[in-house]
């Protein structure tokens, strides 16, 4: 009886574990392996690491670090990594700036209003990411609504280039990832004990003082979670720079895509992915640890 129970328990644990091992964890090892190969014109387009030469019974093992050396020697890739980190960081900051008042207002609303506002934040999250990015293309075009509006109000005299600039990429990232920022912020702000604010006020704190000294420190877990949920995926973003960015908007996700689909250099694309993972491991571990603390 007990062993049957054990068996069942093990099976329940093993099924999701084996699936994730096979299709989430092992693929990273494969990427690492192929990043050590050389690109060649073949199917698949990379050299094998192990080769059995049957004519003279040699087993050759060939590994190259050439792809990594190439990544570090060429200014282009380094610039792409740095520019992705910069774009993701600045976008995260603006998402926080726009998201915080919204989260704060929702957390302080009455229950019915809260449900409605929360629904308004969650709704875009359920609608297509690709289509929401696309919606900005029509707005930002030379003869799009934003230019029309700026012309009509007299802020500019002739249409300006907004689409296909870095600015459009920032806008796109802030826009699409905003719900990811608002939801964790809302969760921490909602749990906050409002008596603390009254206490601060009674002790003579001005509203801005109690905001910076009480509300903000208490919201820290939400701020960290929200920022990481925006920052990490934004670093590797492909769709937004491809649709809204210019040809000179350098982002590493786009570089990886082009290396893979246009140049068909699978080993180099793998090396780009491995380095991106190494860059992101820090923030991902940090997120897991702060999750644990929150529990």
């Amino acid at each position, binding site marked *: 009886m007990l062993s049957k129970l054990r068996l069942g328990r093990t099976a329940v644990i093993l099924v999701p574990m084996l699936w994730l091992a096979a299709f989430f964890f092992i693929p990273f090892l494969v*990427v690492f392996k192929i990043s050590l190969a050389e690109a060649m014109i073949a199917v698949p387009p990379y050299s094998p690491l192990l080769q059995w030469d049957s004519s003279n019974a040699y087993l050759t093992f060939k590994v190259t670090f050439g792809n990594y050396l190439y990544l570090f020697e060429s200014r282009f890739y380094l610039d792409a990594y740095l520019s992705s980190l910069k774009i993701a960081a600045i976008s995260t900051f603006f998402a926080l700036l726009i998201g915080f008042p919204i989260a704060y207002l929702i957390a302080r609303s009455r229950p019915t209003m809260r449900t409605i506002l929360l629904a308004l934040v969650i709704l875009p999250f359920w609608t297509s990411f690709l289509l929401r990015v696309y919606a900005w293309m029509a707005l930002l075009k030379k003869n799009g609504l934003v230019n029309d509006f700026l012309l009509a109000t007299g802020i500019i005299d002739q249409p300006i280039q907004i689409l296909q600039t870095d600015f459009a990429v920032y806008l796109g990232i802030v826009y699409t990832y905003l719900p990811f920022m608002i939801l964790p912020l809302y969760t921490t702000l909602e749990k906050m004990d409002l008596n603390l604010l009254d206490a601060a006020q009674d002790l003579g704190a001005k509203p801005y003082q109690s905001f910076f000294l009480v509300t903000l420190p208490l919201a820290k877990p939400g701020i960290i979670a929200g920022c990481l949920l925006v920052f990490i995926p934004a670093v590797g973003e492909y769709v937004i720079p491809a649709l809204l960015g210019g040809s000179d908007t350098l982002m590493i996700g786009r570089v990886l895509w082009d290396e893979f689909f246009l140049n068909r250099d699978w080993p180099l694309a793998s090396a780009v992915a491995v380095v991106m993972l190494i860059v992101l491991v820090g923030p991902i571990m940090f*997120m897991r640890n702060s999750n644990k603390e929150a529990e």
Partner: protein
Amino acid sequence: MKQGSSVALKVMAGAGFVFLYAPIIALIVYSFNESKLVTVWGGWSLKWYVELFRNEQIMSAAWVSLKIAFISATMASILGTLAGFVLSRMRKFAGKAMLTGWVTAPLVMPEVITGLSLLLLFVSLENMFGWPAGRGVTTIVIAHTTFCLAYVAVVVQSRLASLDETLEEAAMDLGAKPTSLFFLITLPLIAPAIISGWLLSFTLSLDDLVIASFVSGPGNSTLPMVIFSKVRLGVTPEVNALATLMIVTVSIAVIAAIVIMHRQNRFKDANK
């Protein structure tokens, strides 16, 4: 003073909501535009909706995507429920920390990395074992199941964490076997979480461009892949019509779900 700051807050938050919704509303309005030039208003018309349903490439891609989304969401719900259950109800076991990591990491993993790594896995497997032979619906389903699984697991896990364990303990004390305990007590309690996990997986799968582009084969373009190849060249009115249909459908479903949940909560509160 307090009044003043709350007005400022409302203005800031209001501007935030305008920012969230203006592009979507503009897109919907322009889908009814008669003119082919998307941004020039030529009067109201349903012309692009007619064109949309006549476009066979879009329609067949939509069918492929719906099929993939249905299968992936179902598989992800089963595997994700197991993972969420294991993580929140099973005491320490070897590899628990690893499983936690594997469940949370896909949520933030850049899609280009997930897509590339799965493709390379499929290619290597095909080389070694001859499976999967070529790429198409099967490989996309496996990829989508994997990243949707993580979302289901997180939703189920948080639902289980908020549940009172005494019900399950009482059933156990009364002699319920683990399987009947799970199917008679736990499963009905977490059903709402599983349903929302399924719906979330369905929409995520329906929306995915990057991962599907990596792991799909020739002749198996999903809807986002077709949309992307069209909009890359510029704004197209048929895509506006398609976007409007998708956004309106999803909005109605989400609003209905929220209203139902809100009513149930009020009912529960009233019975307390």
